[in-house]
């Protein structure tokens, strides 16, 4: 190749060459149809993609709500964990209510008159054949017992609460019975008045944390008729609100005492525990020598008393059965 003879390729000539070179190219007759098909393909994909994207976003939103919401079903969702030191110091500082002691098994016993007089609710009143703990494992938590009302003040005391610590600050509160009303002066400040059902007269009360949530419930005797005492359960709902819990409409759900008609004797009693109330009903057809005993567990929830587990039954001699036909709920105060 001889570079010196070579003339510079002019732009016009290059342009002409380029146009000429591609001149044979003819668009395929299919081209327009193929473009249309591509547009359609894209359009078809867009709607499902948007829908899928929306579904994914909605799913994420739901997940976020579930994660952020304080889970009512989770046992670790208590608002405040009780600082143990606070609860114990209140025991030693001579709180206004009845003195309390926390036994090693975690249940609360009330009373300063010595272990012999202690009316521990876990004291086996009847023989193990009908002991509900054999049929209802202690791990079975009563329905709703974890439901901590969000409107209660944060828990400062221990779980379960000491007797009579209605507002969960580790100090027993002052309870006064006045006819058909129960007045509670709380140690955090504030007084609640709970009205008992019509016709009821409060005669004695006991504080007991029936659901083990650190806020003591109150068991109040509301009356006595033909040897059977009736009791109501009061729960602290929120400041300014202490309500009588009912059990299927009955506001005096638990009873203790016995009635006889002829040779048939019906005796009832109950025991308080941190998982609920154990109601015992015994029927004797032989003048009180042997009893057919039914034990029902009642859970204490914000909605009322609910039976849980399967009632257990058994036949017991009077010597074993009789101790359970009483109201055992710690110390009773007038």
């Amino acid at each position, binding site marked *: 190749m001889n570079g010196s003879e*070579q003339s510079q*390729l002019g732009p016009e000539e290059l342009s002409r060459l*380029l146009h000429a070179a591609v001149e044979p*190219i003819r*668009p395929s007759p299919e081209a327009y149809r193929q473009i249309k098909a591509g*547009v359609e393909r*894209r359009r078809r994909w867009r709607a499902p993609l948007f829908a899928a994207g929306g579904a994914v976003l909605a799913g994420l939103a739901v997940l976020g709500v579930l994660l952020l919401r304080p889970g009512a079903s989770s046992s670790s969702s208590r608002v405040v964990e009780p600082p143990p030191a606070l609860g114990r110091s209140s025991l030693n500082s001579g709180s206004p209510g009845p003195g309390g002691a926390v036994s090693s098994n975690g249940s609360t016993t009330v009373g300063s008159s010595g272990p012999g007089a202690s009316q521990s609710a876990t004291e086996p009143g009847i023989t193990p054949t009908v002991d509900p703990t054999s049929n209802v494992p202690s791990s079975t938590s009563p329905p709703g017992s974890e439901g901590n009302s969000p409107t209660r003040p944060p828990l400062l005391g221990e779980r379960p609460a000491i007797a009579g610590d209605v507002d969960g600050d580790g100090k027993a509160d002052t309870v006064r019975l006045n006819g058909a009303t129960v007045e509670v002066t709380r140690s955090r400040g504030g007084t609640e008045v709970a009205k008992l059902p019509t016709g009821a007269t409060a005669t004695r009360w006991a504080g007991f944390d029936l659901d083990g949530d650190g806020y003591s419930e109150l068991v109040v005797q509301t009356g006595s008729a033909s040897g059977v005492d009736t009791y109501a359960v009061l729960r602290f709902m929120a400041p300014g609100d202490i309500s009588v819990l009912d059990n299927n409409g009955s506001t005096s759900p638990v009873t203790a005492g016995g009635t006889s008609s002829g040779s048939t004797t019906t005796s009832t009693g109950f025991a308080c525990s941190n998982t609920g109330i154990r109601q015992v009903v015994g029927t004797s057809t032989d003048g009180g020598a042997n009893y057919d005993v039914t034990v029902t567990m009642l859970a204490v929830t914000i909605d009322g008393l609910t039976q849980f587990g399967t009632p257990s039954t058994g036949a017991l001699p009077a010597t074993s059965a009789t101790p359970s036909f009483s109201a055992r709920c710690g110390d009773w105060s007038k």
Partner: protein
Amino acid sequence: MTLVEGWRPVPARSDAARSAVARDADQALTALYAEHYRSLVRLAALLLDDIGLCEEVVQDAYIRVHAAWGRLQDKDKALAYLRQTVVNLARSTLRRRLVALKHAPKPMPDAASAEEGAYSLVERAAVVQALRELPRRQREAVVLRYYADMSEADAAAVMGCSVGSVKAYTSRGLAALSTKLADLR
């Protein structure tokens, strides 16, 4: 990647507005096809190594422009946007082909058709052969300036470089082509 002027995201529209845009896009697509498809295929043929791919690239560009029609603010620049897309797609096709060639040489399509004949005619053209030996940017500059008749500024916008670079690429490409084509003239 360079953006054509007037190409900006705009807020979402209502459904009615969207269907109006879709109708508008369909009409524009048809008009753009009738007017420019052939020249764009030829442009792609000069930019690409594999002439068999040029129609595919241009069709893809049309589909993309159609999809983006609602976001295109200046409809008069649709052709510029189409060209830009063709250049970009040609670049990425070249890049893909380089990678593919490195690993496994693509077998040549064996189907014979009328287009094949036309393509082989183009492939045999000396100027096309010479063009293929140029570096990619020189080739783009030469094709955009002397085939697409774009100004230096337009070519710079499409290529994503300065006007000075376009000038340099063009003159170097022109010189190289002169040398390569000297024997044939």
